[in-house]
């Protein structure tokens, strides 16, 4: 019944949608507040700079993928660092993906508990999210691609709903520009790159996409620009809506903005947006869970592979539940994530990038001789 994953191929547009959906997690609801705390009214400029820098990361990932044709992240790690070290770094990535998945899960649970269902046990929400993600993953790459493509329509619906935020917007709040210090900019850029960090996942999808590297580059840069503009759009809307004084004290400015918006047919658009946001939370979570599953791609038996995913999701559920028990636990999860994110999304890709040049020279030598 189940086809082997390696033979499944996805199209370019599916790749783009996978990329977009895995970028937009729960974080973005809170991004404007965080950016404002780091860089003040210039937060959106920091976002722009961070976005431009992250494009280079995407290009870097594309280059790495080009140098190792047909190899996914874990295979690349093996062939770059050797067997033992490669397995070690691969395990590191496995842990990293799980940690991000845990983070997504806890932040989703927290969000829903805060806004919609204060009395529902958070474990129920976790379980539902995990079940739907598992259902997606178990269909393999093509199903993930289809599901992600289908739900992309929600991005456009939500973007349209955000227009309500412009009703009370005062763009004068975006001024004055250039007030933040250099270190504040750096912090803002760092936050931005972290929240756009799912470009690492691309290494798992690019080799299974049909099309030349040039087409892939065009598609992915386009998708990335779309994501950045969506980020920029939400941040600017919430900055302009709330202004410098308020935004620091609002936890999900985008939602608050819609809460006050008044439409004729329904009130409280935020509730609908939040319900739709579940889809983004699910897709981003599924993307990371799938990434963790790929760590076992070499396991030949499909059944055993799924067993690994199930065990991984039990771990995720367990840790997320533990994290949800009190503030301290959740803090420690976020701290741990912050610590390892830098290594896995910036340093290791950079290292791979540099090493890929050396490999290319090796190859050229090999062909010359």
């Amino acid at each position: 019944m189940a086809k082997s994953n390696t033979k499944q191929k996805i199209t370019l547009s599916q790749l783009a949608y996978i990329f977009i959906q895995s970028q937009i997690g729960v974080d973005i609801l809170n991004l404007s507040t965080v950016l404002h705390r780091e860089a003040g009214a210039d937060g959106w400029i920091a976002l722009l700079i961070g976005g431009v820098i992250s494009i280079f990361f995407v290009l870097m990932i594309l280059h790495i993928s080009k140098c190792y044709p047909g190899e996914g992240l874990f295979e690349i790690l093996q062939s770059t660092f050797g067997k033992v070290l490669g397995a070690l770094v691969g395990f590191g990535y496995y842990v990293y993906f799980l940690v991000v998945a845990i983070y997504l899960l806890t932040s989703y649970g927290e969000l829903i508990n805060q806004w919609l269902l204060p009395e529902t046990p958070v474990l129920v929400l976790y379980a539902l999210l995990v079940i739907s993600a598992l259902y997606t993953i178990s269909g393999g790459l093509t199903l993930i691609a289809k599901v992600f493509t289908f739900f992309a329509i929600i991005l456009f619906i939500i973007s349209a709903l955000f227009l309500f935020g412009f009703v009370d917007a005062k763009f004068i709040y975006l001024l004055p520009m250039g007030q933040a210090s250099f270190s504040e900019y750096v912090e803002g850029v760092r936050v931005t790159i972290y929240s756009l960090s799912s470009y690492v996942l691309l290494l798992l999808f690019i080799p299974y996409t049909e099309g030349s590297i040039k087409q892939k580059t065009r598609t992915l840069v386009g998708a990335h620009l779309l994501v950045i503009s969506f980020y920029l759009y939400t941040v600017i809307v919430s900055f302009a809506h709330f202004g410098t004084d308020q935004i620091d004290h609002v936890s999900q400015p985008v939602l608050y903005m819609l809460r006050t918006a008044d439409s004729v047919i329904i009130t409280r658009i935020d509730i609908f947006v939040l319900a739709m946001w579940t889809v983004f939370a699910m897709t981003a979570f599924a993307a990371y869970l799938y990434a963790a599953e790929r760590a076992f791609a070499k396991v030949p038996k499909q059944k055993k592979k799924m067993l690994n995913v199930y065990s991984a999701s039990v771990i995720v559920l367990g840790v997320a539940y533990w994290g949800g028990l009190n503030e301290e636990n959740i803090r420690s999860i976020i701290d741990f994530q912050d610590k390892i994110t830098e290594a896995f999304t910036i340093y290791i890709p950079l290292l791979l990038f540099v090493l890929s040049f050396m490999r290319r020279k090796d190859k050229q030598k090999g062909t010359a001789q």
Partner: protein
Amino acid sequence: MGFFKQKNNQQVQEKVIREDKMPPHRSTASLEKNIRYIQEELKNSTDLKVRLLPGNKQALLYLDDITDPDKMQRYIFTPLREMDGDIQKIKDREESDDLNKAVSALLEGKSVYIIEGNATCYFFNVQQNVTRAIMEPMNEKVIKGSHDGFNEDIKQNINLIRRRIQHRSLTIKKQTVGDYTESEIALVYVEGIVNPGVVKELETRVKNISSDALLSAGAFSEYIEDRTYSIFPQFLSTERPDKTVSQLMEGRIAILFANNPTCLIAPVTFYAFYQSPDDYNTRWLVATYIRLIRLFSFILAITLPSFYIAVVGFHYEVIPEELISPVLGAIRDIAYPPIVEAVLMVIVIELIRESGIRLPSPIGSTIGIVGGLVIGDAIVTAGLVSNLMVIVIALTSLASFVVPSNEMSDSLRILTFPLIILSSVLGFIGITFGLLMVLIHLCRMESLGLSYFTPIQFRDLKDTVIRVPQFLMKRRPEQLESPRPYKSNELSDKHGKK
């Protein structure tokens, strides 16, 4: 299947041999022995008539109820008289010296002529044809367009298709299914348009069916569909030749059944259940409008009750201020929680529907009035169900009947239940998760190995959610991977270019 595995004392039963695979039984020169063998093989059935001709040297055997006496007179006795009793001079006959073949021929409605001292049997086709007139199918009426429909005679059905596609590449492959019933089925497709891999897949699946009887198209589809446990239909069933032909020309395969007016079409997509022949017969803007209404009705049919329950139970804030007091007023005096109300109302509607189906139409409309008006009004006055819930459920069931396909409408009505339960537990989040699971499930599904539910992309939009003018629909659906992707020879049409 594996719930009650019995490994040790599994029952043994004799294998049934199909008529066309019977080992030959040579006939003898003795007339009496031959007749006795046939009588025994047919278990001395009373409708087997043995007509001894004058002189008792020749006999004509036939099954009384499935042969036509007129034809017998015309094809056997009249020529026999003209040829002075020499059977071998008559044309239009088959012959064999295998008595088992003779038995099979009898069962098909042929008559068997046996002569003393001659080991050869002669078969004459005198089958009586019982057919219904061609009528418009009851449940697939159209306003404009052809009004003929399939009936129980497979030959006539193929005739209706052949008349519409007069090309040599229209292929018809007949097969029989069922060891006892030997029901004839016909796979119909247009060679060169259909994806050959799909035909092969379907043929192997049909070959693998092992059953005593093939009773209906629905049972047949359960043998060969991709996901038996899914609630969505995976074969489009229709009784309309024009619909069948348009699907054939898209590159799909039609399966016709003997003694059954239903035609199954595969592989299909989810959207096919929302298309009606009317769409192609009206202005494209009108058709698009109706398609959008159908899409809206789909969303309404599965989410409206759960949406209402979620709003009433969890998210009052969503209701505009002016409406809050009427809504609250309506549900304040109801004793039951909304979910009980909803389930109660849904069951009432199902009762009305199910009781009305098999009744003759005058009584059926009475049931509608009693059910709809009397119960609907009384149930509100009695305080069992709120006004609003009656509106909600009535709208939902109306919406579910908008679907042109009967099976899909049934599936939709079942789908409301899990969503009602989820929404009464988790509100909007529950609905989101429910829809998420349904959509993932749809994305997972396949029809004959091709994807069942493709995400809406711009190119697929043209004949799914909306309908664009014909000149813009130059491509066959992507899903089918047809070897002839364009619908005409002229590829460089000015209109169709992207």
